[in-house]
């Protein structure tokens, strides 16, 4: 019994941390740019693919094993550096200030393009990079064994969340971003370069998506179609937490992570739709999510 609860909690926490890293980028981009980015899932997949390419190269160069984490970070960074100018400067900038739903459709189109770009670059075959997962060994909890790497994901998620929170609330550039979130027009009048803030925010969002992909790559077989589920799952998280809210993303990820882990162990039939169910339920009772403040209406 205790074992079972512990399993559910640990599985849930691992799943929630993975979800949190993806959703954090999504919710941050929405907060600053007011764009609900469907292509976020595509960037996630690119991160996974680039890690699956870079890590074998890294090993073939004979680098020390412990530094493989560095290779994974570099691959995520590379994806963000390539994708941000194309997406934000090239396409999305044309649509700022337009209807949110129209922009969702634009990101859906970009998502479709990214799907095929993955196929064109990496082909249809599955890629495997399980080596990094063996790096941290295994840990024992009572009678349960957990792979150290999986548990390290929880640490990574906490680090990402705290880091972003710290930057936003405790540094000058973070406060500028908060000002832009609050009112882009007035921030612009006060001398803030809004375009730069948008670019930076999108870069951070893309990096977080790619990072989640990079660190998930060792856990899965990297193949066509890994992005499609991520899109809706991360949507569910940010909808539950409230669009644009970081604490909301934490709670949302925990709710979905735990609900899903509980379903896997107790009610496997419901595993697929439990998260949609949570999302629909939350929208019905608290449509703006848990952490969305009141907003003034223009008359």
């Amino acid at each position, binding site marked *: 019994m205790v074992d079972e609860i512990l399993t559910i909690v640990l599985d849930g926490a691992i799943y929630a941390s993975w979800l949190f890293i993806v959703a954090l980028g999504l919710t941050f981009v929405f907060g600053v740019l007011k764009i609900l980015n469907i292509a976020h899932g595509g960037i996630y997949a690119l991160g996974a693919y680039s890690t699956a390419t870079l890590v074998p190269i890294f090993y073939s160069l004979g680098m020390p094993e412990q530094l493989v984490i560095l290779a994974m970070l570099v691959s995520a960074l590379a994806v963000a550096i390539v994708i941000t100018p194309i997406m934000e400067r090239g396409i999305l900038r044309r649509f700022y200030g337009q209807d949110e*739903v129209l922009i969702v*459709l634009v990101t*859906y*189109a970009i998502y*479709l393009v990214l799907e*095929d*770009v993955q196929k064109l670059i990496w082909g249809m075959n599955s890629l495997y990079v399980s080596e990094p997962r063996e790096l941290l060994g295994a840990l024992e909890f009572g009678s349960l064994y957990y792979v150290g790497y999986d548990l390290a994901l929880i640490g990574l998620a906490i680090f990402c969340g705290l880091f972003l929170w710290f930057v936003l609330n405790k540094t000058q550039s973070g406060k500028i971003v908060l000002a832009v979130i609050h009112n882009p027009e007035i921030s612009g009048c006060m001398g803030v370069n809004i375009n730069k803030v948008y670019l930076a925010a999108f870069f951070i969002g893309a990096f977080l998506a790619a990072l989640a992909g990079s660190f998930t790559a060792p856990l899965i077989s990297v193949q066509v179609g890994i992005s499609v589920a991520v899109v809706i799952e991360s949507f569910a998280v940010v909808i539950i937490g409230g669009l644009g809210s970081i604490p909301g993303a934490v709670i949302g990820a925990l709710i979905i992570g735990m609900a899903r882990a509980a379903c896997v162990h107790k009610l496997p039939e419901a595993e697929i*739709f439990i998260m949609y169910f949570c999302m629909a339920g939350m929208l019905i009772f608290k*449509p*703006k999510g848990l952490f969305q403040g009141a907003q003034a209406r223009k008359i």
Partner: protein
Amino acid sequence: MSEKLYNNLLFQSIFLMSFLILVGLLIPNWLVFVITKAIAYGLVGLGIITLMRGGLVSFGQGFVFGIGGYTAGLLGTQAGLTDAMLLLFVSFLFTGLVGLIIAPLLARYRDIFFAMLSLAFSMVLYGILIKIDAIGGSDGFVLPESTYFGIKPSSEYADYILYVVAIIMTGFISILLRYYYDSTPGLIALAVRENELRVEYLGSSAFNVAVLNFTIAAGLGGMGGALNGIALGHIDPEFTYWTTSGEFVFISILAGYLSVPAVFLAALLLELVRSFSGRYFPDTWQLILGLFLILSIIFIPSGIGSFFKQFFDRLKKSK
């Protein structure tokens, strides 16, 4: 003046319908099939247009599309009902009823929240459908061949007859919708789109407008789903998946909310791009579809319908 315009509209529509029915005899069978599918998608798009006139966009029309498809499919396999026209009509009514039941829940929300809640509904349905093995789970099931007034057409004409039925039923629905759009409740929807609060101050209910429009959209989506299922001869949970819903939103954005025929043109464009790129670039059809989407949103932001409107306005002026 308006009396004359409507007579004119009826005449124009019947002329267009007869023209399309005749053209159907001349064009190859695959194109007949593609147009039938475009009509099915266009019906769902028409539903979204109806919502868009009231300022709402649903990102979950896969929900009603799926319900319509499964209604027609289950009536066909379980109840032995194979008359295509009856199936389309029953799906329209049933899905409209489902829409009426959930509309009050959805009608309280606006913008992205409306889009997301409708998306959530469609994904819950998807999750349920792939788990019900009795109706094929994720594989779906095959529909029995459809009949018309008790007669089963030979297979070489089956596509064409469905095409004719689709054109006639859709044509009359489009005419009715045009009347609705120009009626008082239809025009209030446009006012809600402009400024909801002012409409409420003036004594109309934005909530009722949203409920009515969502119900209509649901009925149309259900009929589209049934038509798509009958045309394909097969339905599966993919009908309700979010990527399918995305295509419907694209059709309505490409068409714009001003014109009814533009919706079917947009749907046909999408179907053609999809079938051509699927045929000649099987590995990169999503890439082409995505680029097509982006370019059309950049260059025709207010939709094909805006061209139509400009054209007709100019025509009126010159008279």
